[in-house]
């Protein structure tokens, strides 16, 4: 499975190690791996953020992310991709998202990895609600570019 939805804190590096071992074992077919990890910060738009809740649309989320991987595979010469995304209650410094691409070529790996995170941010049905320093809550209204 190349799409993982996690409802508890996870170590992104361990997930990458496990996926790579399981998917490739001792094979030397790929030469290049590009990875992005997104981590929850303790600030946003000038405010302290104490905690966050990530809502998603179960079912549609997984199918959207699988479509993104199919799309990346059709556009670039990548062997496989991985997307991991957290849902539920999250604390600062915990990992929200991982996107990764394995290829024989580094440009394909980089471009596919970046495509996955950009498209995920614009299309995958996740919504963030922040708990601020004064315990008030607010929905994040939109993702920032870049």
């Amino acid at each position: 499975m190349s799409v993982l939805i996690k409802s508890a804190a996870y170590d992104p590096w361990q997930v990458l190690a496990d996926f790579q071992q399981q998917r490739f074992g001792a094979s030397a077919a790929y030469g290049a791996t590009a990875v992005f990890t997104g981590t929850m910060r303790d600030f946003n738009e000038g405010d302290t953020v104490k905690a966050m809740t990530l809502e998603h649309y179960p079912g549609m989320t997984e199918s959207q992310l699988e479509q993104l991987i199919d799309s990346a595979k059709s556009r670039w010469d990548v062997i496989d991709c991985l997307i991991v995304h957290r849902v539920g209650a999250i604390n600062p410094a915990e990992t929200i998202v991982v996107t990764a691409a394995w290829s024989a070529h580094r440009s394909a790996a980089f471009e596919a990895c970046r495509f996955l995170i950009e498209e995920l941010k614009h299309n995958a049905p996740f919504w963030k609600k922040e708990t601020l320093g004064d315990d008030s809550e607010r929905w994040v209204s939109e993702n920032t570019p870049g």
Partner: protein
Amino acid sequence: MITIRYFASLREQLGKEQDQIDSADNMTALDAWNRANTGTKPPDNILVAINQSYARLDSPIGSGDEVAFFPPVTGG
């Protein structure tokens, strides 16, 4: 029967997670919204999914479909 689902800030604003409505001939996603939320217009930036794929307010729907309405996504 058509299932309507609401997510995130829209779910909180409407105070409900889902509606079940009867289907009718030639319905669109907007018709479903209007039947379930009489007098309330959908927000300008609303997103629509039919059976868990992106669609539009004027996309056709029928019996057994799941229609979802939600605000701009903010994952990643």
